[in-house]
């Protein structure tokens, strides 16, 4: 009796109610969330592909103007940037090596967003995961490589997960706002790790704070150009998407995110889901910390290993519109531009920050009303989903 209805007739989405004449697309998207199987897929495809593509095109054109203003031929610049990042052997490796943590930290943000939790602690969770891995690797320095590797990974996951769970527990038990607690935990992690690198875990051979390098037997250099982390990250992204869309866990997350009262009425424990979601998120970040340690030079924990991953994670999650699978292309883009930047600078004399500019403009255009109005009206409501996390 409920034959699927062509978009224009779908009439939920109060969002569109006031629009004079909602475009079919808009209507379709409004219908979106109502049809997990059908339209949501459509919607997500729209959101994660069309919008970023349009935005990307726009951003690159603006970037081109900037590049020209520096007296460089834009076409040449882009070509040089991407040919190095994607075609040159070492460039591609560098790119893919950056993709891994970006995807994982993107997931670390995307997952809690489903509950309306905003995890800006990816940084700390990554660091804790990495230092945990470093400690494990050092403890097992004489064990066979494979054992070391596995244990290292597990420890990384657990450490990151635990670190994030602190925020989760504080929120669940005491209602401490996760934005504060994760900001604080980032700093705490920084301090503790700095102390470890100067004390318990310090490698005296190195003239600066750094952990002992992972024993050679446990180092996993890229196979060809492919870092070992890549398959892991990709699998995890897909798995997450499935988890959120097809399992009851995902349904719990979603319900809590959309109406916590109804959730508690339905017997979903908001506390548990909160802790679980943060735990999973931290696990992702922690895992990427572990992978970083055994899979990327210099195979040891040292300052700046986390770079700006925490916030890159947010960028990724947003470019991907909170869609786990979307984090993969998003991460690839960011990674390629970051990896290509130094070469671009060397080759053309542009400041490497140009890539930050272009990325920024991309994100701008992604969030640009024009594009959005054109392509997915529903985002307004979705936005509220994302941001409503604030209210504790």
């Amino acid at each position, binding site marked *: 009796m409920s034959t699927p209805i062509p978009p224009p007739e779908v009439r939920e989405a109060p969002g569109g109610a006031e629009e004079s004449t909602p475009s079919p697309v808009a209507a379709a998207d409004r219908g979106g969330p109502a049809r997990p199987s059908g339209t949501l897929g459509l919607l997500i495809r729209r959101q994660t592909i069309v919008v970023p593509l349009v935005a990307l095109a726009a951003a690159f054109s603006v970037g081109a103007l900037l590049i020209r203003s520096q*007296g460089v031929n834009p076409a040449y610049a882009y070509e040089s940037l991407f040919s190095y990042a994607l075609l040159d052997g070492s460039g591609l490796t560098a790119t893919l090596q950056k993709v891994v943590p970006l995807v994982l930290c993107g997931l670390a943000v995307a997952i809690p967003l489903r509950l309306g939790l905003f995890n800006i602690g990816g940084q700390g969770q990554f660091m804790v995961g990495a230092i945990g891995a470093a400690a494990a690797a050092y403890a097992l320095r004489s064990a066979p490589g494979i054992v070391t590797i596995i244990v290292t990974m597990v420890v990384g996951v657990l450490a990151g997960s635990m670190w994030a769970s602190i925020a989760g527990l504080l929120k669940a038990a005491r209602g401490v706002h996760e934005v504060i607690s994760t900001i604080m935990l980032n*700093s705490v992690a920084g301090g503790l790790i700095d102390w470890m690198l100067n004390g318990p875990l310090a490698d005296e051979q190195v*003239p*600066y704070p750094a952990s002992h390098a992972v024993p050679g037997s446990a180092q996993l250099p890229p196979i060809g150009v492919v870092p070992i982390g890549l398959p892991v990250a990709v699998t995890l992204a897909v798995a997450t998407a499935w988890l959120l869309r097809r399992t009851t866990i995902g349904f719990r997350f979603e319900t809590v995110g959309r109406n916590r009262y109804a959730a508690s009425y339905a017997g979903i424990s908001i506390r548990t889901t909160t802790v679980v979601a943060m735990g999973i998120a931290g696990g992702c970040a922690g895992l990427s910390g572990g992978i970083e340690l055994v899979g990327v*030079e*210099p195979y040891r924990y040292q300052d700046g290993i986390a770079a700006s991953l925490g916030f890159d994670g947010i960028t990724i999650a947003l470019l991907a519109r909170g869609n786990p699978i979307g984090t993969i292309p998003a991460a690839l883009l960011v990674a390629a531009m970051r990896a290509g930047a130094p070469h671009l600078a060397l080759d053309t*004399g542009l400041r490497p920050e140009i890539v930050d500019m272009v990325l920024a403009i991309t994100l701008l255009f992604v969030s640009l009303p024009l594009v959005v109005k054109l392509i997915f009206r529903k985002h307004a409501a979705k936005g509220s989903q994302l941001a409503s996390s604030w209210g504790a």
Partner: protein
Amino acid sequence: GSTGGAGSGATPTDCSSSETFCVGLVTDGSKIDDKSFNQAAWAGVQKAKDSLGAYVRYIEPAEAKDYAASIKQFTDQKYDVVITVGFLTADPTVAAAAQNPGTKFIGVDQLLDTEKVKSPNLTGLTFPADQAGYAVGYLAGLLTKTGKVGAINGLEIPPVQKYFKGYEAGAKASNPKVEVVGVYHPAGGQPFNDPVWGAGEAKKQLSQGVDVIFGIGSNTGNGALNEVAKSSGAGTTRFCIGVDVDQWGTLPEARPCLVTSAEKLISDGVAELLGQAGDGTLKGGNFLGKTGISQFHDFDDKIPADVKAKVEDVVKKLADGSLQTNVVL
């Protein structure tokens, strides 16, 4: 800022050919115009450039894991010399040197473990920072009226500690009753790029009676010098001391209080080594560069002659080794 080798845009040069002498420099994550280490190293390259007719370029890798890739870009293009700046780039440099025996490597501020590292094409350029610290500390000890001198430091790591401990020793040497206070930037954040924190700490030390401040640690230190320069009595009762390079030039806003700077003569060292590389006399292993204290500029006539004399004497003694700083980390 972004001038230098990169500025001139892409001029396809074939570095593999013997007549083109190509020099590439890799920074340690902070920028080429950091008013300090990288900038000085690059200045050294510039110095040598003309005499060698060299073709010069630099790369500013964003994160630690990019160092190797950045070096590789130069080696792939068969650059004759690759300079890597800062201890952070030490490991990748050693690795690259081993892989590219044909290329000369200069590691600025990289002390080589000559037991392990034997590559003849790798030279580690280091500086006795403690001596520079000792010298300016000695001066500070003589300058202070309040008997309290201070230092605002970046991260608590050997290069910084060397300066600070030397400074401490020097101050005590010239003025046994002097109190030396120093503070390291809290972990996390950006220990070498937090001028606001540096300024705040300087403000605090000043109001606690410190009247000479030594800023060790890039922008964080600069913030401190800046604060002293702004404070009342800057240059008359309150003084500041720069680091790494003669900051009279790199940090004009500090001039009101900047009596001198504890210098690692980086550009000289780099230029010298490049010269050797040019005429093929460059030897592998560790090369100890020079440190010193830069000239007093406007303070030349403000500083009593006897003070200057004493300091010059100390600098000389340190140079010829007749005076030891006895700094241990």
